């Protein structure tokens, strides 16, 4: 039932762009101007109008002025509710969008930053087959989850902001299609070999020497001569030893694209993604060598995000 309808919708969008009222891509911030807000009675609104007509005819027929007055009050309230529905959307501003992080296949959180000068109640957002309801006062963040399928840029699908406030008699809506894409990280492979890395000791030391020292301390017997800070010691009357904050408990990983010969690109990416995830989880230091980019050794979540982003943007 749904598929033919969507096909029809796509055809109509292509052939009758002015009728479908879908928006082309637009720059943020998006402000819902009155020209792009549409309003129609809901099914219930139509039925209630028919009921009002019955009431009107009845009260006129029985020349019953009290009933007529009541009907008029209800009718007027109905039409005012239409204006209220319109006012709920008019001037609503989508100031910006923020995306979280997600690997392909997992939903990604996208936060809409709505702004309004006055309270907008019961605003609803239809995006990617899910519906969210919220009030907007001042600045309101609304977070929605979007499904992801593959790594790379994911354009925010066109979404609809609508409301039936205050009485469900009228439905006002506006389509919006901001130019905004979120980056989806590659999906790590489920299982596979660990990075087999014969890391030479001297390289490790060299890498170590390049690092900042945490502190200098007095020499204790048993300290390696290599760690003595000779220059600093020369200015003091005792030997000083370079103290590394954390002794290296784990091996550092050098994750290299070129080591994965014999696999296709996507498999390489997903294996690297898995290794990155494991390295991050184990708190290792790691570096990523890609044909397009080399990310030097480091650790921490910012480093992980940088590596995953580089992987996601691999051609």
């Amino acid at each position, binding site marked *: 039932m749904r598929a033919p309808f969507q096909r029809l919708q796509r055809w109509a969008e292509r052939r009758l762009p002015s009728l479908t009222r879908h928006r082309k891509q637009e720059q943020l911030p998006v402000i819902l101007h009155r020209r792009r807000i549409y309003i129609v009675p809901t099914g219930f609104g139509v039925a209630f109008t028919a009921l009002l007509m019955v009431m009107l005819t009845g009260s006129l027929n029985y020349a019953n002025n009290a009933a007529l007055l009541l009907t008029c009050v209800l009718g007027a309230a109905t039409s005012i509710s239409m204006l209220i529905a319109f006012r709920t959307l008019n001037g609503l501003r989508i100031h910006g969008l923020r995306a979280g992080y997600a690997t392909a296949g997992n939903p990604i959180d996208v936060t809409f930053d709505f702004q309004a000068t006055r309270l907008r109640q019961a605003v609803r957002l239809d995006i990617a087959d899910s519906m969210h309801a919220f009030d907007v006062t001042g600045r309101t963040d609304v977070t929605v989850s979007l499904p992801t399928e593959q790594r790379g840029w994911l354009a925010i699908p066109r979404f609809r902001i609508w409301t039936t406030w205050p009485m469900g*008699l009228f439905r006002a809506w506006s389509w919006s299609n901001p130019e905004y894409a979120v980056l989806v990280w590659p999906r790590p492979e489920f299982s596979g070999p660990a990075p087999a890395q014969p890391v030479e000791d001297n390289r490790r030391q060299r890498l170590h020497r390049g690092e900042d020292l945490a502190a200098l301390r007095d020499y204790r017997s048993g300290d390696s001569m290599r760690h003595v800070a000779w220059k600093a010691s020369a200015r003091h009357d005792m030997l000083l030893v370079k103290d590394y904050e954390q002794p290296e408990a784990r091996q550092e990983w050098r994750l290299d694209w070129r080591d994965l010969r014999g696999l296709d690109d996507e498999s390489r990416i997903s294996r690297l993604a898995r290794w990155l995830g494991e390295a991050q989880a184990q708190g290792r230091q790691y570096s990523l060598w890609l044909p397009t980019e080399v990310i030097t050794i480091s650790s921490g979540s910012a480093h992980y995000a940088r590596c995953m982003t580089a992987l996601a943007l691999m051609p």
Partner: protein
Amino acid sequence: MINLAQLFHRTPLQPNVSERTFNLMCLTTAFVLAVHAPHVPWSLTIAFALGLALRWWQRKHRPGKVSGWIKVPMLLILVAAVIAQYGNVFGREPGSALAAGLLVLKLTESESSRDVRVGAAFACFLLMAALLFGQSLVATVVVGLGLLPALSTWRSLEPTQITSTLPRQLLPAVVLLAVSLPLAATAFLLVPRLSSPLWGTSGQQAARSGLSDEMSPSDFTQILSDDSPAMRVTFDGAPPPNHLRYFRAFVLWNYDGENWTRADRPEVASLPIETTGAVNYRINLEPTHQRVLPTLDVPMQAPAQSHMRSDGEVFAEKPVDDVMDYGLRSAVNYRLEGNIDADVRTMALQLPSGFDPRSHQLAAELRKRYGNNDVAIINAVLSLFHNGGFRYTLGPAPLGRNAIDDFLFNTHEGFCEHYASSFTVLMRAAGIPARVVTGYQGGYWNAMGAYLLVRNSDAHAWSEVWLPGRGWIRVDPTAAVQPQRINLGAQDAGGDQLAWYRSEWVESIRNHWDIVNRWWDKGVIGFDAMRQRGLLTPFGIRDADTGILERLLGVGIAFFGAVGLLWALWRRPEGDPALAAMRALERKLARAGVIRGRSEGPRNYLRRAIRSLPGQRTELDHLMRCYIELRYATVEPHPESLRAFRQAVRNFQPHRVV
């Protein structure tokens, strides 16, 4: 044994409809039951209320759907109960009882928002239907109040609703209805009324109250205890004194020993009357569902769309089903029908044979004693009423077959009907032509509203006797027994029935409250097709026909639509007021030729302005310092300095230097 709880619990709880919504829906239903209670039998109302309470309790403590095994039998029971009560389910009363029951049953399946919406809409319809049974101000206001929970129910179905107290939930609906009133009033004034109904409106309440065109012992007790307004009278000039406020409705000629009935006298344009004093007045008559139009004393002419009969009765062409307003001119000092025909005389002397022998005997004795002096006979009978131990009461002892004899010689107690009836019989027996007149007497003069309020309890019966050369003369025998009846009114005269709620201050409040009712009756209920046609008379349009009204209605709706759109489109000026004032200053300076560059800071820009407009150096310098301070000195600008800055911007007028 079937577990009842299981029946209620067929599907697990999935609360699509919040408890708050459901409570509002229950409140709406309670309102509907309340406004329909006056005309739905008590047994049904109580059953409906019990059903409502039970369902509320059930949903609160054992939430979930109600099984069809309960709903269907309940529906059948409802239909059966209505049929048992009324005989069928069609027509206004059975229909509304059935609908109220259906609404209660609808609550048993109000578990989705769609059901609740439909239920509340149906409740709105039922609220309106209640007004078809009576459109008094109180009823209308109560029905209007009933709209509040209905509208709030719909509102509560919208998402993101925070729970709050009941008044807070009802308040938005109050505001909405209040805002709707201007548009509603316009529509109410201008919606063209139907000059004739589209379908039958018969079967209106048959004989609710009001005067009957015959007089039998039981009728009057009913009407005399009915306090509802019968009519309101405004006079051109001062109102006549109380003892002249006799409003004639029916003239009763025929007596069969038990009942007095009227005779269809021929229609006349005016009565043969010689008058020295006349009163102009307007009567605003409550619906009686009869055709008779009460008139003060003797009308000179029938009002429009009505006719007069030769005995002074006035009948409208159609039954008075709605409030009716008519103007009249009546004689107060007059000589009516100096001569009467032989057949009128025969009618006015008719008496059933074989009734009331002692009364006949008394009349013959009086005639013998006073000879030809009719006036003496009348006075003798009146003094008999006055001195003969007669008592005025609204609850007299029942009378036997010879009612007049019983009353005159045994019970000695009764009210206007008994006195008028026996007096007339005595007159006829004595050979004096006489007839009974029923109508209203007295009324309450409402000084604040300058009108006379006549209640149904002011109904009265009196006699008219015909004397040669003097015509028909009104004689009120009740006055002989109970002068207060004439001076004070029926309720005060019926002393032994005086209840606490008839005390003076309650009466006074009631009478003042009647002003509001009168305004409502005149302004809203009585606003019929004719009044609507005259609506535009002040604007020079004598007869506003449907076309004009429709066009005006369109204009009115367009006007309110424009006002509403302006409101909907109006946007609060956004952002920083200091910045807005600066923009205003920029616009003024731009007119003088100093246009702010895209990346130009306020200081540079205003310095440049000072160079361009050296004559206004001090002003601009002051403005600049104010603005810099407002924007950058503090996080939150001081409202006082903000006001000063805006004022300075408003006062600044750039002088173009050539």
